């Protein structure tokens, strides 16, 4: 955590005179002018979650093996490499690209992807004239089947608050300066539709195969906060 964010949080905490913190196992209804930081009972979320999981297992509410499989799924199987393959296919196959833009769910399913938090997909095509950017200002909605679980910055207050009011400033922070003439479209994921950006294919990739193209595609480009960079000169042609 950076100093800036820490300072902000400290300010936010001290600015709040009285608050009720749910989930401590007891209710706090006293004034919070005495400055404790609400991390006391218990101090460590790791301990708290461990205790909770043990209780739920003991009550027969949760199967530990199912938790392991689910975690492994999102740590190792479902992630942005899926989306990169979709993008690469679209770059390599113009018929697929058309299907992807007109019936995104069916086209993505051709590669075997779909499901939880990606039940209703819409793919947005970035061009030299239109730049699409995806956010969820209300929580953290994100297309899991193609991008996996969202990074912390996507779920953070700075990104959620600013991307709709100052998308060009946000993009600049990511190192992307768009010409004034480009049209910026921000997509706030307020419903159960999930958005994937189809980035522009970089120049110099004309002879590359689909698998090589997929290697170039980044998660950030598929959210719309970056472009896909042209391949580095390797001399290996």
């Amino acid at each position: 955590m950076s100093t800036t964010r820490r300072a902000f949080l400290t300010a936010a905490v001290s600015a709040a005179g009285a608050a009720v913190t749910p989930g401590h196992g007891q209710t706090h209804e006293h004034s919070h002018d005495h400055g404790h930081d609400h991390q006391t009972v218990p101090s460590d979320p790791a301990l708290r979650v461990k205790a909770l999981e043990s209780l739920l297992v003991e009550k027969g509410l949760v199967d530990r093996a199912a938790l392991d499989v689910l975690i492994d799924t999102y740590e190792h199987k479902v992630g942005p490499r899926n989306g990169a393959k979709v993008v690469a296919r679209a770059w390599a196959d113009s018929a697929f690209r058309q299907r992807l833009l007109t019936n995104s769910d069916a086209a993505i399913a051709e590669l075997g992807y779909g499901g939880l938090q990606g039940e209703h997909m819409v793919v947005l095509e970035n061009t030299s004239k239109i730049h699409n950017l995806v956010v969820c200002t209300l929580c953290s909605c994100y297309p899991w089947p193609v991008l996996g679980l969202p990074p912390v910055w996507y779920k953070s207050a700075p990104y959620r608050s600013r991307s709709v009011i100052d998308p060009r400033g946000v993009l600049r922070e990511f190192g992307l300066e768009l010409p004034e003439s480009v049209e910026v479209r921000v997509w706030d994921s307020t419903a159960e539709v999930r958005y994937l950006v189809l980035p522009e294919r970089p120049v110099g990739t004309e002879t590359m195969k689909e698998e090589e193209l997929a290697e170039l595609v980044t998660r950030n480009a598929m959210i719309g906060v970056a472009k896909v960079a042209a391949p580095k000169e390797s001399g290996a042609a």
Partner: protein
Amino acid sequence: MNGVHDMGGMHGMGPIEVEKNEPVFHENWEGRSYAVTRAMSAWGKWNLDASRFQREQIAPVDYFQKSYYERWIIGLVELMLKTGLVTRTELDSGRPDAGTVKQSPPFTPEKVPILVSKGMPASRNVPVVANFHTGQLVRARNLNPVGHTRLPRYARGKTGRIDRDHGVFLFPDTNAVFLGEKPQHVYSVRFAARELWGDGTAPQDSVYLDLWDDYLEPA
């Protein structure tokens, strides 16, 4: 509810901090929190909208102070208490209450790939008349419900144009509080950046929101 979760357009939140090579879960407990939350939802005592609404009700100071998965756990604990899946004494002691019959978990390892690949579609295959059509000018209603809503404050009262009709979906405002699914059309509505934020923004820029029939009126 007009909570701090509804942060589109707010200022003062600081720079965006991007972590290079960020892991999916930073610590073991984050993954466990994620997985326990999903596993407990399999009991069918609440739904996705209720989970979101529960997290929105976290006190503002905690909403900002707690990390993402801490908020998930806070929300989960509240939902479990409300629905009787756990008791306060069990949370305090860490042990099941005396005389509690051990249950059989509904979310088993073989259910994981099914959930992940099939998902839980919020669309509903029922005939519902669309109140609006593509290309139509609409205004987002000036609604300020104390309950759950997916109509952000920054769009209320603003005029936009229907870009596409996504079809029929359950309605989160009622679904979150178990008052029924109230299926209705959801539209992608294009709002000009200038309509939302004033003249300082680029004239061609826009923000698209997915909005339900009940959020809209003719403009």
